[in-house]
């Protein structure tokens, strides 16, 4: 049974049975212990106090105390068990819902925003789980308690008991009516909350558009409508909920009134002893809690079922295709594709594809071209089962695509989407994403293994990612205590680099030269000119290091640096003060985005202040900034010549002092030593690149790759690079890199059918050609390829070319055939040539 068809009670029935039984036992014990205090109360008043027996008083009080302690302890155990059951149910619902939602057809997600799914899985399911935790324990405990107290009251005096319990049937008659109203309001609340989260999700994902149009008011208004509706509904809902509680309370409080009148009368006439009346009143009082809890439970149940039913209704959609094949192994497909009279109609009767037919043998390659909106991508997506076509047929090796399971396709097909999605994680994880998914599906026994490092390197070379990943590897830091062998080799690479390329590349690299100021390193690095071996001397701790501060004083640098820091902060604020803390704005300032607010406040506070006016704390903050100041990067302030000279002199003073006072704390930059605080690249260069312009990167890369090959290090560095984290949605990669990565992961999977939807659109010419070449040499005859193409100069090598217009294939044939025909393709190519003039 799919999850959305299950009733709420399913989760109670399938919860941990042992825990539920344990819970029941604990409850039974608790209920028994609850009556003891009442009996003791009576005994204390009548026997101990009445008879003036101290020993009995102690005894009964002891019992009283013991039962209260046990009851409290039990209560705790009950709560624990309930929470455990509830949270277990919650986790199950969340996991199974997510699994279900992932499999829903793509069309579902066009109308459902991610915000809505988030709120469903995060908040809406909570009330259901609360109910599951309470479902057995609460009603059973409280009903039993009620029965126990009620029975006890009958045992004391049947008449009084009847009188005081008569209100309950009345309450039971009234409350469900009110609850129905409350449920109505709750249903509305769920719907409005859902609309609201959709709206928020939409606005946030369209925030660029909102900013660009300045449409803050429009968005506020749309949002406001929902918020106000929600307010009204919540008020109604709360009124009914509280109304039920109040009514309940009222009846409950009427009870003692009857008791006093009747009980008092009986006591005065000596037909009822005082102790019994006290016990009776207490018993009645004790009825209140279980009754109230039952009421609360009733409401929890009602709210939970409303939210739950609403939730399940929304997602009550069958996945269009089975995940796993039943009664058979997944098909190993060869990749012959036959499309016949395929049509695809979407809501509103709009036909995106009309009677499309085509045939591809195993290993044949088809290029689809045409204007945007002509249905190229739609056709590719219908063949890859991403869209469920509405008419005609698509067959792969004679199997109808709509009847295949997801697993059949995942095993046999690789899709590169127009704007592929890259997940947060390392390059390697993304590279292996498709293979990993396939492997996990097959289970461990299949004997297949993930691609080896060599295979991965081969593929990243093929798609043109090798240099990029090498670059990531070169930007890695090596920890001081590991990779000793690698470090030795890198030192050799450094020496060779200096000998062979040092002079040529001097314009691109600023070498670590102790006689010169380093414009592409921070002030701190310029002073220390070495690698710290103690945490107190690392760059971010220097401003807190008293020894270093004393040194700055002695070097006549402290005041100039504080003043420089002040200038840096002021200038940054002048430019960025009213902007959101977007990372891109902070790359060229020594202030990081999370310190921004602090420095803004600081600049505001110290505006126009003289150096001596600043407190020690303020001086410290400014000093911190100036120690990070890197003139080659932070162009907002020019480094005064005087300060530059002082820093250079300071470098030598510092070295002299620290070698005397704390020898070994700093490893000074030497050609023969690895610098662990710098990247591998900077270590090889023994300096910093002056610019990140591609032309200089390329020059540096060329020379370094050559040297790395000599030392047999290339693969090791690339392996380090594959551990580079790409950021959420791969945002630390360029558009081209993301596309290459997506192509690489499909090539690595090597499926018999390849679907590429404008897969190379963001690539430079060279990469595009390389990949086209690869498709023609390596993949032709091996994998059937359907490629949606936007550039006409890559189509020559395809076996077939389909030209699409308004949902139809209007021309189909080889490149030569279509050109000879002088039809639409001919016009395209001819037109493109004149257009470029």
């Amino acid at each position: 049974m799919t999850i959305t068809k299950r009733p709420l009670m399913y989760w109670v029935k399938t919860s941990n049975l042992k825990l539920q039984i344990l819970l029941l036992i604990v409850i039974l014990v608790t209920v028994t212990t609850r009556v003891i205090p009442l009996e003791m109360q009576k005994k204390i008043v009548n026997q101990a106090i009445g008879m003036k027996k101290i020993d009995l008083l102690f005894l009964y009080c002891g019992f009283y105390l013991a039962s209260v302690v046990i009851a409290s302890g039990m209560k705790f155990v009950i709560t624990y068990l309930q929470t455990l059951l509830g949270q277990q149910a919650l986790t199950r619902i969340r996991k199974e819902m997510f699994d279900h939602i992932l499999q829903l057809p793509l069309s579902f997600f066009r109308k459902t925003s991610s915000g809505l799914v988030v709120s469903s899985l995060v908040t809406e399911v909570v009330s259901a789980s609360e109910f599951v935790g309470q479902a057995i324990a609460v009603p059973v405990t409280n009903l039993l308690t009620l029965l126990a107290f009620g029975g006890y009251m009958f045992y004391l005096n049947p008449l009084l008991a009847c009188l005081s319990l008569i209100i309950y049937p009345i309450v039971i008659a009234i409350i469900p009516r009110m609850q129905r109203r409350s449920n109505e309001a709750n249903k509305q609340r769920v719907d409005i909350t859902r609309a609201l989260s959709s709206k928020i999700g939409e606005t946030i994902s369209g925030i660029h558009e909102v900013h660009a149009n300045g449409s803050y008011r429009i968005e506020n208004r749309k949002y406001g409508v929902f918020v106000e509706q929600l307010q009204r509904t919540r008020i109604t809902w709360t009124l009914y909920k509280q109304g039920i509680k109040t009514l309940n309370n009222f009846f409950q409080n009427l009870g003692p009134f009857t008791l006093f009148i009747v009980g008092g009368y009986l006591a005065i006439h000596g037909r009822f002893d005082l102790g019994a009346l006290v016990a009776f009143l207490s018993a009645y009082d004790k009825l209140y809690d279980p009754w109230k809890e039952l009421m609360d439970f009733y409401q929890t149940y009602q709210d939970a079922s409303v939210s739950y039913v609403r939730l399940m209704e929304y997602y009550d959609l069958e996945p269009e295709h089975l995940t796993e094949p039943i009664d058979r192994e997944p098909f190993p497909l060869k990749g012959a594709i036959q499309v016949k009279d395929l049509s695809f109609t979407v809501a509103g009767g709009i036909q995106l594809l009309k009677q499309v037919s085509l045939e591809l043998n195993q290993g044949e390659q088809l290029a689809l071209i045409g204007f945007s909106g002509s249905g190229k991508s739609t056709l590719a997506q219908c063949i890859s089962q991403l869209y469920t076509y509405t008419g005609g047929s698509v067959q792969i090796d004679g199997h109808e695509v709509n009847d295949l399971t997801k697993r059949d396709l995942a095993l046999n097909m690789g899709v590169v989407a127009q704007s592929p999605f890259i997940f947060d994680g390392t390059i390697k994880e993304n590279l292996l994403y498709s293979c990993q998914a396939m492997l996990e599906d097959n289970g461990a026994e299949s004997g297949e293994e993930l691609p080896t490092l060599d295979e991965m390197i081969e593929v990243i070379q093929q798609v043109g990612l090798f240099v990029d990943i090498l670059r990531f590897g070169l930007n890695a830091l090596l920890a001081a205590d590991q990779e000793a062998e690698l470090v030795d080799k890198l030192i050799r690479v450094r020496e060779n680099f200096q000998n062979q390329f040092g002079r040529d590349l001097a314009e691109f690299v600023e070498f670590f030269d102790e006689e010169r100021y380093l414009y592409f390193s921070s002030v701190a690095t310029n002073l220390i000119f070495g690698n710290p071996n103690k945490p107190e001397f690392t760059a971010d701790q220097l401003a807190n290091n008293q020894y270093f501060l004393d040194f700055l004083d002695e070097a006549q640098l402290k005041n100039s640096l504080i003043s420089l820091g002040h200038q840096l902060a002021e200038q940054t604020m002048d430019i960025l003060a009213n902007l959101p803390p977007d990372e891109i704005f902070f790359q060229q300032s020594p202030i990081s985005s999370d310190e921004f607010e602090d420095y803004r406040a600081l600049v505001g506070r110290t505006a126009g202040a003289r150096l001596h006016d600043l407190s020690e704390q303020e001086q410290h903050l400014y000093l911190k900034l100036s120690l990070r100041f890197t003139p080659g990067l932070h162009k907002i302030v020019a480094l005064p010549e005087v300060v530059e000279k002082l820093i250079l002199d300071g470098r030598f003073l510092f070295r002299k002092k620290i070698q005397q006072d704390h020898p070994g704390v700093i490893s000074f930059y030497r050609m023969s030593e690895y610098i662990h605080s710098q990247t591998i690249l900077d270590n090889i260069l023994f300096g910093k690149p002056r610019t990140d312009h591609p032309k200089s990167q390329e020059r540096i890369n060329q020379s370094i790759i050559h040297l790395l090959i000599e030392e047999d290090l290339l693969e090791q560095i690339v392996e380090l690079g594959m551990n580079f984290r790409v950021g959420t949605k791969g945002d630390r990669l360029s558009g081209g890199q993301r596309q290459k990565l997506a192509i690489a992961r499909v090539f690595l999977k090597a499926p018999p059918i390849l679907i590429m939807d404008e897969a190379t659109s963001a690539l430079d010419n060279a990469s595009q050609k390389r990949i086209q070449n690869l498709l023609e040499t390596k993949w032709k005859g091996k994998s059937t390829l359907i490629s949606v193409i936007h550039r006409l100069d890559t189509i020559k090598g395809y076996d077939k070319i389909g030209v699409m217009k308004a949902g139809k294939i209007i021309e189909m044939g080889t490149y030569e055939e279509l050109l000879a025909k002088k039809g639409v393709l001919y016009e395209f190519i001819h037109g493109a040539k004149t257009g470029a003039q």
Partner: protein
Amino acid sequence: MNSSTEPRQAPSEYQANLEILLQIPLFSGLPIEALKLLAYLCRREIFKEGEIIFQQHEMDENAYFIIDGKAKLILENGGDEEISEFSESAFIGGLSMFYGMKRLFTLKAETQVTCLMLSREKFQKTLEQFPTITGKLFEGLVKSIYEWEIRVIGEHDQDCARCRGSIGVTLV
């Protein structure tokens, strides 16, 4: 301590950039806050004689202002056809700030060229912060295309039948 009022200090590269941006007609309508941000975000680059600044058919999402030096624009169509020459104060590639395109020409440094480069990404980030300037920028862009076409029509040779197809860009 107030840097802007005390002349004793050399101006920073940022300040020099800001002065350059103030000269560029496309940016003339922008508020000073936006120009400051752009001046802060752009970078300087030096190209040696003979180096390619951008390459025909390659994606290039930068605009360039030549601070110093000369560069020539080449159309690689079979052979290399030299189209024009840019020198000091030329601003090239404003359209790339709005749409990522593959270059239709190659720009090559004739002498050593120092230029100010602004990337589309950073420009777009600035636009997001000052959404109201979009209109001004488009006005400036359209105006320069319009003036371009007036010049082309003025120089149009009526006997050249093949040239007729290439005019009319203002009608897009």
